C-alpha cells in the first residue's frame, strides 16, 4: 500500500491580486521521486514557497496534507521540524549569523521537536564535519556568515548540507542544480541520492536533464500556468530537452 507524504488537492494561491497557483493537485508517496519542470515564471518557486509556508501568499482554495496533517495550520518552522525541507532557488544571506551557529540551531530545533537530546557543541561539530566533508564544503566556509558572499555553487551545496543534517521526510529542491559546475552537480546529486530511501520522498524542480540523469525520477510533471499539464516518466524529460515546452503549453 502506498503511504502518502504530501497530498495537494485543487490548490489555488495568489500574491496580491495575482493568481499564481491555479487548481494544482499532486500526491507524493513514500519512496517516490517527482520532478517538476516548467518554463520560467510558471510558478514553480511560488508552489515551493507556499508548501513551505511563506506568508506573502494567500491560499484561496484547496487543501494540503503533509503526513496526514493539515499543512495550512502549521507555521513554517513546524513544517520544517515535522519533516518538510525546502532547498531554495535563492538562498538568503544573513549577515552577522555564522553558518555553523545557524546550522546548530536548525539541527537542535528538529531534535527538540523529536524529543531527542539537543547536541552540544562538540557533538554537533562532529556531525557537521562528516556531512560537510561529503559535500566538499570546507570548514572555513562554515565559519563565515551564512550565504554572505557565497558563490551560487556554494549556496547550493550549503542547502544540500542543511537537507542532509535535517533528514526530511520530503525534500523540495528548487533548482538545486542551477549554477553548479559538473563536479559540483555530481556531489550535490550524490548528497541527494544518499538521503533518499523508501520512507522519504523528493520533489525536484529543475530545468535540466543532467540532474535527472543522476537522480532517476519516478514521475516527471510538466507545470505550466499554475498547475500540472502533463505527467509522465523520465522519457518526458528527455522529450522536453529535445523539443522544449511548446508542445505542452500550446494547447493550454
Amino acid at each position, binding site marked *: 500500500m502506498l503511504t502518502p507524504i504530501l497530498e495537494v488537492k485543487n490548490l489555488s494561491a495568489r500574491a496580491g491580486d495575482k493568481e499564481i497557483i491555479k487548481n494544482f493537485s499532486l500526491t507524493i508517496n513514500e519512496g517516490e521521486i517527482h520532478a517538476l519542470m516548467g518554463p520560467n515564471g510558471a510558478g514553480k518557486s511560488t508552489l515551493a514557497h507556499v508548501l513551505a509556508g511563506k506568508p506573502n501568499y494567500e491560499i484561496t482554495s484547496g487543501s494540503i496534507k503533509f503526513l496526514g496533517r493539515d499543512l495550512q495550520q502549521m507555521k513554517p*518552522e513546524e513544517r520544517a521540524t515535522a519533516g518538510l525541507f525546502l532547498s531554495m532557488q535563492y538562498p538568503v544571506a544573513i549577515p552577522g549569523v555564522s553558518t555553523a551557529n545557524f546550522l546548530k540551531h536548525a539541527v537542535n530545533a528538529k531534535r527538540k521537536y523529536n524529543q531527542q537530546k539537543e547536541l552540544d557543541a562538540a557533538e554537533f561539530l562532529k556531525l557537521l564535519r562528516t556531512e560537510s566533508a561529503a559535500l566538499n564544503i570546507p570548514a572555513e566556509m562554515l565559519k563565515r556568515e551564512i550565504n554572505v558572499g557565497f558563490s551560487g555553487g556554494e549556496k547550493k551545496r550549503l542547502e544540500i548540507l542543511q537537507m542532509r543534517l535535517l533528514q526530511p521526510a520530503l525534500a523540495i529542491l528548487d533548482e538545486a542544480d542551477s549554477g553548479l559546475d559538473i563536479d559540483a552537480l555530481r556531489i550535490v546529486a550524490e548528497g541527494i541520492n544518499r538521503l533518499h530511501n523508501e520512507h522519504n520522498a523528493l520533489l525536484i524542480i529543475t530545468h535540466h536533464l543532467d540532474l535527472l540523469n543522476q537522480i532517476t525520477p519516478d514521475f516527471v510533471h510538466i507545470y505550466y500556468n499554475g498547475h500540472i499539464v502533463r505527467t509522465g516518466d523520465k522519457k518526458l524529460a528527455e522529450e522536453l530537452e529535445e523539443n522544449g515546452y511548446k508542445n505542452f503549453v500550446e494547447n493550454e
Partner: protein
Amino acid sequence: MSFTEQNISLWGEDIPWLSGLRQKGRQAFTHCGWPTAKNEAWKYTAFSPEKLHNPQIIHENRHCSADCHCRHNHSPFPFKVYTVEFCNGQLHDENFADDLPQGITIKSLAEAIYDGEAQKYLGKSFAMENFPFAALNTAYIEQGVMILVEKNHQLDAPLYVHYHVHDEADCFCNIRNLIILESNASATIIEHYEADKNAAYFTNAVNEIFLNNSANLQHYTWQNEALEAHHVALNSVQLRTDSSYNSFILQNECATSRHESFINLQQRGAAAEVNGVYRLQNNGVSDITTNIRHLAESTYSNQLVKGVVNGQAKGVFQGQIHIAPDAINTEGHQLHRALLLSNSAEIDCKPELEIFADDVQCSHGATCGDLDPEQMFYMQTRGIDENTARQLLITAHLQEVIEKIPQQNIKDWFLQLI
C-alpha cells in the same frame, strides 16, 4: 521649591575657585532651565523635573552594609581589573588604588581639589551654557575621581569604575570625573552603572577627558541602570596631536538615558571612534548624542551606533560632525542603524554635518526598519522558531558594533551580554 534651590551643603565652599565654579554652574543651569523640546539639542528627549522624584544627594552610605559587595572590590569580569566603587553616588575611597602600577594616580576628586590639581581641568573642556545637565553637575561638584596616567605610562589592566545604587528611589548621583592621560600614556576604563533593585533615582555624570599627544584611551560604558532610573552622562573629550579616543557604550533600558559625547579633535592626527548599542523594549527613552569637532587637519572620526526598539520605547540618535575651515584632509564617518520592532515604538535620527573645509572625506547614513522577512522565513524553513529567529537577527544586528572592540576579552564580555 525647585531642584536647584535645595539647601544642600557641599564641602569646599571655602575654596573660592570651587565655589565660583559651582556658582557658575548654578547660574548656567538656571539660565538654560530644564531642557524642553524647544531646545534643539534635546528636542527628542524631553526631560522634566516632574519625572524626577525630588532627588537628593545622599551624604551617608545608606543601606550599604559592611558586607555589601561594593565595599569589596568586586568585579564581574573574568580578567584582571583595578576597581573604583561608587555607592548611591558616593565614592568608596577607602581601599582603591593601592595596587596600581607606577605612573598611575587615582584619587578622589575631593583630594584632587584640595591638592589644587583639579583646578586646571575642572570645567575647562566645555561651555556650560550648551550643556544644561553638565551645568547642573557643576553646581553640585563633590563626588568623583581624578585619574592621571603619567607620560609614557600604561595602565596594564582596565580600570573598572562601578556605580552602584541600592534601593534608593530619591538618590541623586552627581558624579564628576577627571581623566587625564599625559603624552604617550594609555589606559582602558570600563564604567558600569547598575542598581540592586528597580528605583527612580537620577544619575548625572560628567567625565572631562584630556588626552595629550599620542595618548590612547579605550573607554567603555556599560549602562545598566534600573528601569525607572534617569541617567544623563556627558563625555567631554579634548584630544591633542595623534592621540586617540575609542569609546563604546552598551545602553540598556531605563526611563530616560542620554549618553552624550562632546569630542574636540584639537590637533593634527587626533582620532576618535564613538560606537554604541542600545536596546529598548518597554517605554524608556534612549538617546545617544555625539558632537565631534574636527578642529585641525588630518583628524579622524568614526561612529557606528545600532539600536533595537520595541514596545512603546523611543530611540534617539543625534550625530553632529563639525569640520572647521582649517581641518583639511580629515575624515568623519557616521552610521546609525536601528531596528524598529513595534508600531508604537519610535526612532528619531538627526545627523548634522557642518563642513567648512575642502578636501575632506565625510559620510553619514541612517537606516530604520523591521527585521527582514526573507531572513526570518529562511530561518523558519530550517525549523528555527520565530522567537529564536528574531533573537538571532537582533543579536547579529548589534554584534557588528561590538566586533569593533579591539580588546578581545572586553569584546567577549560585551558579546555575551547581548
